[in-house]
């Protein structure tokens, strides 16, 4: 696992895109290797919660360790991240201004993300979390478009606000979770001890959940997302919506719910209301937006809402669905943003009212966009369907009216999603060409094709053969106390 | 030689707060500087008086007072250099109007 980070670290010296591409490919290779190795070890009967463990004492007196390790969920997230980093590199091939600094920060973001997913020490995790957040400010503020300073500031402030909650939450866990007086940051130990008093949990669970929820674009803390995505450069949008927002879901799952199961159980209703609202609300909002990126950002709010929603259902199926949805949404939203970036790079507008007939002008991008749209609205054979169905089936475990109501409300989102996706597809891709200048535009070039096809292959791969991934994920939720 | 120590202290206290009053109320930089001199002198009186009444054989306060005078002289010199500079730049030495360094 360290290899990934070292690999990234050594990369920093190099500035040429080619090296970035090779490096990103190496990351993907490593991630695939880790996956295969992980599956092999599981196959071989290694039933430890986390494999590839590595512990280095970092700060003795507070018992902070650099401890990393992966279970099936982290492996899934690593795969997702590496695919998106790779395609992100190709998508930002045309980045001309301060290329070196751009990729440097891009890598910084990637380091934070990878580190977050493999950490099993709360403090280390938080550290990587912050490492992942900070570059966003610069990446948006410097390389963004539109109202970039405002967006960058808003995004950073809101996420930092979230991490303030989070830090309190983490310290709360640290101080109140010990079984034998020995304070620890280690997630596995805390989960095993399961010694946190419920009254303390009730205080720190909401803090932690909201802290991560901000990043997971939970209603009403989602407003950074549309502005941020709209202003960010393509690859940053990809990585941000594709991976960074998943940090929120992953954190909610790994820390908030896993470590404070009783509170999660007692307070889930509040968050179910919020996330359930998120799902429908985001979808409705997306219906009337005119900026492609805003549409997609609101769609992300809706889909990420579904992730948290499923987590709160607290059973294995829904949980697996949530992780699947993270992976699936990561891939398809990255694809969306990549394509939007490519289209914007040509038309210099993202306003759907000014576009039309793109399918004729740039068939490859058009088809890719349709595929992304279909994945987003949950077409079988693409990843979105797998995730959503797992979530709905899992969520249906609760028989009471409250849960049923919200699950069915969630189901309506698949219709609304279809509405806004088809609206965009119909306006932008189909119909007559709106702007005569657009007729001379070109189709995707090779590096754009690599980015788009890479993501489509991943989406279709998961969509067609989801079993291995879903098994890998569901087998990992062994130590979850909250599973009913 | 029997002026009670309280007399001196009352005097220095009053002088000190006269200086404080001047420091706060003055607008003119030189005026402020003069108030500072008053404050310093009030303090100096204390040093010397305490030295005289408590440890006449040691000369500690005495020396301290001496150094204060020296430092005050230096301080005044630098302050005046700055004031003149400020005046050259802004044609004004009112504290309220000097806001260039702010923001």
């Amino acid at each position: 696992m360290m290899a990934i980070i070292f690999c990234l670290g050594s990369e920093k010296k190099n500035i040429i895109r080619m090296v970035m591409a090779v490096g990103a490919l190496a990351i993907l290779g490593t991630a695939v290797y880790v996956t295969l190795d992980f599956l092999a070890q599981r196959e071989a009967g290694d039933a430890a919660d986390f494999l590839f463990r590595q512990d280095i004492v970092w700060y003795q007196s507070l018992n902070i360790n650099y401890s990393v390790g992966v279970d099936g969920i982290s492996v899934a997230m690593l795969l997702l991240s590496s695919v998106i980093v790779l395609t992100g590199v190709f998508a930002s091939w045309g980045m001309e201004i301060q290329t070196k600094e751009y990729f440097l920060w891009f890598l910084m973001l990637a380091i934070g993300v990878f580190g977050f997913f493999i950490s099993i020490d709360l403090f280390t995790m938080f550290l990587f979390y912050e490492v992942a957040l900070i570059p966003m400010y610069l990446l948006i503020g410097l390389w963004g478009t539109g109202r970039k300073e405002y967006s960058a500031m808003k995004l950073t402030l809101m996420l930092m606000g979230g991490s303030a909650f989070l830090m309190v939450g983490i310290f709360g866990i640290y101080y109140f979770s010990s079984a034998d007086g020995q304070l620890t940051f280690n997630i596995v130990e805390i989960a095993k001890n399961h010694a946190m008093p419920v009254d303390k949990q009730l205080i720190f669970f909401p803090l932690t959940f909201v802290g991560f929820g901000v990043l997971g674009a939970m209603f009403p803390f989602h407003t950074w997302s549309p502005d941020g995505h709209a202003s960010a450069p393509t690859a940053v949008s990809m990585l941000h919506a594709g991976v960074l927002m998943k940090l929120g879901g992953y954190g909610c799952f790994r820390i908030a719910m896993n470590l404070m199961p009783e509170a999660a159980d007692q307070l889930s209703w509040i968050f179910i209301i919020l996330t359930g609202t998120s799902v429908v609300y985001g979808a409705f909002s997306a219906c009337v937006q005119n900026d492609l990126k805003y549409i997609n950002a609101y769609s992300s709010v809706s889909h990420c809402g579904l992730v948290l929603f499923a987590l709160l259902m607290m059973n294995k199926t829904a949980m697996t669905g949530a992780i699947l949805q993270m992976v699936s949404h990561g891939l398809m939203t990255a694809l969306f943003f990549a394509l939007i970036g490519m289209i914007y790079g040509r038309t210099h507008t993202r306003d759907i009212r000014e576009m039309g007939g793109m399918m004729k002008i740039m068939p490859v991008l058009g088809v890719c966009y349709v595929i992304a749209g279909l994945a987003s609205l949950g077409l079988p054979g693409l990843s979105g369907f797998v995730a959503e169905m797992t979530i709905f089936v899992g969520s249906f475990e609760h028989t009471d009216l409250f849960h049923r109501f919200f699950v069915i409300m969630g189901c309506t989102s698949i219709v609304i999603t279809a509405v806004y996706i088809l609206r965009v597809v119909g306006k932008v891709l189909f119909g007559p060409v709106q702007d005569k200048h657009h007729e001379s535009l070109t189709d995707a070039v090779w590096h754009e094709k690599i980015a788009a096809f890479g993501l489509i292959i991943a989406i279709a791969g998961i969509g067609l053969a989801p079993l291995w991934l879903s098994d890998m994920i569901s087998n990992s939720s062994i130590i979850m106390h909250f599973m009913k | 030689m029997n002026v009670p120590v309280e007399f001196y202290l009352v005097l220095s206290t009053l002088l000190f707060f006269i200086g404080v009053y001047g420091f706060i109320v003055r607008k003119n930089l030189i005026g402020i500087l003069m108030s500072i001199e008053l404050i310093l002198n009030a303090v100096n009186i204390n040093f010397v008086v305490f030295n005289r009444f408590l440890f006449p054989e040691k000369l500690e306060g005495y020396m301290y007072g001496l150094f204060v005078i020296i430092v005050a002289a230096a301080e005044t010199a630098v302050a005046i250099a700055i004031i003149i500079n400020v005046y050259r730049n802004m044609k004004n030495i009112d504290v309220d109007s000097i806001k260039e360094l702010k923001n």
Partner: protein
Amino acid sequence: MEFLTAYLTANNIIFFILAAIILVFGFLSVTTTKILRAATYLFFVLFAIAGLYLLLTYEFIAAVQLSVYAGGIVVLLVFAILLVKNLGEETEKVSCQKKLVSAIAAISGVVISLVTLFGFGFQNNESADELTANVNMETIGHTLMGVEKYQYLLPFEAASVFLLACIIGSVVVATNLKKEDKK
């Protein structure tokens, strides 16, 4: 009357005269609207303080006070005033509010200090009177130049370096801008 006679020693009378000069001129120097007058009043205050030192039989420090303060600083101030202001120009009027606020600070400080002071109950050290012997220059010289305990070579040197630094600093501050002016 006994009270009066007890206090009406020559020393005390001189002290009261000096104290009156200090306070009155001190007060005038912070309240007068004419800055040049303020400097003059300050000169009187400093002068009277020198008298106070003499009363305490510390002639050397009185001399320093006279030469450095009265002779140096006040002259410097006057020069500064003459450089920056037209002679006799009035300082701007200070608002009543500001005066009041400042007075509150000053008076409350005075009150708290005096209350503390009188509450302390000093016992006048009569023996101090007996050691009235002047501090002679030799002692002062030794104290300034010695390196023993209660001797102050180091501060002395520090002060000299400090003064040098101040001179240089003043010059730099003053000349820097001239260059800029030329530009």
